[in-house]
């Protein structure tokens, strides 16, 4: 049974060759290959982890941005509202002021007018008195007869003018 009796030569050669191959491959092939595979796997794992981290950071940043934007929007609307209020206030104030000013001017004008009117009336009364005096003088010069009645009449006339 040659098939199941191991031959010494082949046995020894196989052992020697296998051990040499094991040694060479271990040193020059398996070590670098396994090291590189390991490095790649950890590298990939790290990349995935950092990508996940970056993704989370991005999401956080986006949320931050959203929040800032929201805040800015709110601030803007507040500012707009304030501006509008201020504007309204200023307009109202100005209106009030203008109204008051106008009233004051009107009042002044009215007082002025009253004064002028009174002054004018007084002047007119005086003028008329003078004219009446002049007229009376002229009349008196011509008809100086009944001196007393004349004087009464003049007095009456003068009072009439004053009452007017």
């Amino acid at each position, binding site marked *: 049974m040659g098939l199941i009796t191991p031959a010494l030569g*082949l046995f020894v050669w*196989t*052992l020697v060759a296998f051990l040499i191959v094991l040694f060479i491959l271990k040193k020059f092939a*398996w070590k670098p290959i396994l090291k*590189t595979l390991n490095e790649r796997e950890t590298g990939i794992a790290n990349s995935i982890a950092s990508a996940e981290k970056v993704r989370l950071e991005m999401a956080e940043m986006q949320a931050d941005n959203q929040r800032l934007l929201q805040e800015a929007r709110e601030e803007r609307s507040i500012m707009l509202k304030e501006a509008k209020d201020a504007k309204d206030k200023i307009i109202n104030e100005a209106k009030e002021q203008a109204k008051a000013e106008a009233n004051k001017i009107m009042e002044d004008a009215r007082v002025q007018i009253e004064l002028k009117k009174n002054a004018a009336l007084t002047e007119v009364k005086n003028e008329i008195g003078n004219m009446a005096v002049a007229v009376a003088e002229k009349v008196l010069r011509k008809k100086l007869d009944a001196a007393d009645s004349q004087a009464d009449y003049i007095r009456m006339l003068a009072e009439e003018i004053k009452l007017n």
Partner: protein
Amino acid sequence: MLKKSKLFLATLMLGFSAFGTTFAQEEATQHAEAPAAAEAHHEEKGKLNIKEIIFGHISDAYDWHVMDINEHPVSMPLPVIIYHPEKGLNMFMSSNLEHGHVAHEGYQLVTEHFIHERKEAGATEEELAALESKTGKIISLDGAAIKDFSITKNVFSMLLSVTLLLVIMLTVANKYKKNGAMKAPSGLQNAIEPLITFVRDEVAKPNLGHKYMRFMPLLLTVFFFIWINNLLGLIPSGANFTGNIAATAALSLVSFIVILFSANKHFWGHLFNPPGVPLPAKILLVVIEIISLFIKPIALTIRLFANILAGHIIILSVISMIFIFGAMNQAAGWGFAPVSIAFSIFMFCLELLVAAIQAFIFTNLTAVFIGQAVEEGHHDAHEHGIDHAHSENELVL
């Protein structure tokens, strides 16, 4: 899932072995019935001797016989290296032996022709029986116990495949060094990488746990060494290296030594003093455990050798059928050729599968055995409960 696939592989393997064995047996019985006929045909030149052809293909030889062209053999002579206890080392080319027709420097290749000659010369029955057992080997005519370290066909084929393996793996390793870690693999590197990660993730890690890195070089070398030799053995007129028991025995010896040297206190403790067992049973258990320790490498040896050998014998038998039928009737031979070729193509495909599966099984069982030897105490086993159960299952297979 993983366990399922392993189970599947194991069943497949068992199936193959059973298949192989039945065929081998059929083959054996066929030849057991045939010897008378073979004897009768022996003297007649040009007659078919299938047994000789098949055994010529599957056994080792001192030259690499490729084929015959017009009855003229095309073969490559290989160096014969013999250690003689008195004459020391002798080296010469196998062509000097002239296929056993002449002796060279006192060395003779034992052939049937030579045995026949001795029989004619009136040799004793014992001498003839001794010669019979040495058929195909070289003997020293002065009867000295020589040691034969010849570069035979199997050794030469192994050296070829080893060279090929070294070239492939060193090329790939260089590419890894050149490309660095963070570049996608390409070319040959891309083809080898899944195999390396397969051995690491499916063989080493499940069986060896966190200590796997220490045994990776051994497991990878065993896997690729066996696989490439299996594949080269499938090439027509190639050698039958992994189908030779000496080759598989050498590989198992390496595994066995690694198992023994990596075994920890816990392993030896359980082996020689199984805890919680009454004394009589303990003695029995220790004996069984020691036997099983030695059976492991023997099983590794025989599994690989028998599977590959059986595959080769089947393919050769199927091909030979053409010539068996042809010898009966030329038309029958031609008629059977397509059937025979179809079946041998099927067998070749199967053998391609078996080449990888057997390499995987040898590697996996080595990892399982080492895993048992380096396994920590039971606290560890509970921590890694799945791993433990896993390796227990592997043992059953």
